């Protein structure tokens, strides 16, 4: 546990002082501000502000364009960059379990991603201060759902980052898995067969817009997101221990 805490603290510190992370944050906030502004300009949202959380958190461009890309960029440094520059060797020869390495890096990325989402909450606070009538249950629900989805995307990104020292492969691989999880269910969701049924059950934006951001916390969605994250963390763990076990 002592080694886990030491690694978690170091990961958070490295994220907090990395210029690259601040560039990511700046781009994220800028694009989010633009999307927020565009959403507010939409007529049907101006007519009913309670539709803003499902749109912004679930079906808008934020989910389809930005969310699959930012976690892989944030997680680049976690394994791929460490592998490339050579800091992974001292880490993996220290007396720390591979599971603790994966969990410490994952937790650090998740905690840091709260800052990304915190900015979006600030936009809603600004609206509130300007006298808008907001449904905070939907906003907080959307925030929780989006954060759970981010946790899933962070776990896939960590997995891609663990493939080796190629940064393009790590970022591209993570984004590719995330886009696959978004687009494949969207493509087949209207089919009248088992694939359609499966796609409807795995459709992440729908889980957010029809569930969390509508103020409904569905245990199926929570379990789906948590277990999927656990699956990718386990795959990352397998990748890591394979270094020690596969000759």
């Amino acid at each position, binding site marked *: 546990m002592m*080694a886990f805490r030491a690694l978690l603290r*170091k990961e958070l*510190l490295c994220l907090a002082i990395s210029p690259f992370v601040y560039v990511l944050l700046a781009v994220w906030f800028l694009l989010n501000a633009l999307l927020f502004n565009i959403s507010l300009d939409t007529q049907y949202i101006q007519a009913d502000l309670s539709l803003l959380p499902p749109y912004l958190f679930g079906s808008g461009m934020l989910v389809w364009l930005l969310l699959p890309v930012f976690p892989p960029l944030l997680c680049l440094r976690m394994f791929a960059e460490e592998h490339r520059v050579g*800091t992974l*060797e*001292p880490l993996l*020869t220290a*007396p720390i379990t591979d599971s603790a390495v994966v969990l410490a890096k994952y937790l650090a990325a998740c905690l840091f991603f709260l800052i990304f989402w915190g900015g979006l909450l600030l936009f809603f606070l600004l609206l509130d201060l300007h006298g808008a009538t907001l449904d905070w249950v939907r906003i907080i629900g959307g925030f929780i759902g989006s954060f759970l989805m981010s946790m899933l995307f962070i776990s896939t990104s960590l997995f891609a980052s663990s493939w080796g020292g190629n940064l393009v492969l790590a970022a591209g691989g993570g984004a590719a898995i995330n886009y696959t999880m978004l687009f494949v269910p969207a493509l087949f969701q209207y089919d009248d067969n088992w694939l359609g049924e499966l796609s409807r059950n795995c459709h992440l934006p729908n889980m957010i817009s029809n569930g969390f951001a509508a103020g409904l916390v569905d245990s199926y969605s929570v379990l789906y997101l948590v277990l999927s994250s656990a699956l990718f963390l386990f795959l990352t763990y397998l990748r890591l221990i394979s270094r*020690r076990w596969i*000759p």
Partner: protein
Amino acid sequence: MLFAPTLEMIETKELSKQYGRVQALDRLSVSIAAGEILGFLGPNGAGKSTALKILSGYLPPSSGTAAVNGLSLLSNSLEARSLVGYLPENFVAPSELFVAEYLTYRAGLKGVKPAERKAEVLRVMKLVGLEHRAHQRFDALSKGYKQRLGVADSLLGDPPILILDEPFSGLDPLQRQEFRQILRRLREANKAIVFSSHVLPEVEDLANRVLIIHHGKTRVTSDVKELLDSHDEVQIVAEGEHDLNLEAIQNCKLCKDAQAVADNTFTIKVALSQRAECLHQLAEARVCVTSFAPTRRDLESVFAEFVNSVPGDNI
């Protein structure tokens, strides 16, 4: 974990490693006791770093076993790694962190209690002369100081076993001298130390034993003094017929690798303990020896001899 030292702190049996079709390490068997320094020698690509990576727990062997203090590096990896301080060949620390920050983080990883971390970090920084660089970032350090940081990292938590891959690399002559002193003190503190180096005088000066590998194969494992003694050359100057003298010397059972280097001047190899007997045999063979002068060889020339003796390979 309670540390109970065994006689053999590091032990490998038939350790092999293959990268695809390349045999990086071929059946390495060696043991290192507490209080012993083993110098790991070999030309570039000989398999030194591969062997040290396996001993540090970073790489698994393709076959064979490796254990530290009786703990297998495969089945008891975590416990085994807690006994080892490891310096990789190209040591790198996160560029964003200050020296003291990095060492504090590493102390935490190595299980040093929070209340003791500051003192432990200060101890290792003082040991390697880094205390004045505590608030510099890794990127701002010179190569020598980066190497010192790597050494300080390996000493954190006072591990009983040190595995150091090219620890003298990047150090200036004064730093090397200081580092040799540090290693000697650690040996006196009963640590088992393995280090690889291309600086053979350092190895000769420090190591109790050397292991020379080439193309992954062990060429020799020996006590340094014994190795040098057995490779000492003796120059003989004789009187009389050159060819007859050469024939007599070549027929002498104790004279190895007899060669004529000038008229009636020959070199032979003979163990220190057999020199009197050798001289006696030469007298019996009617060689009139006027000079019998041992010439001490250094580790560098012995190393070159071992490596060059592989057909088709030269360093």
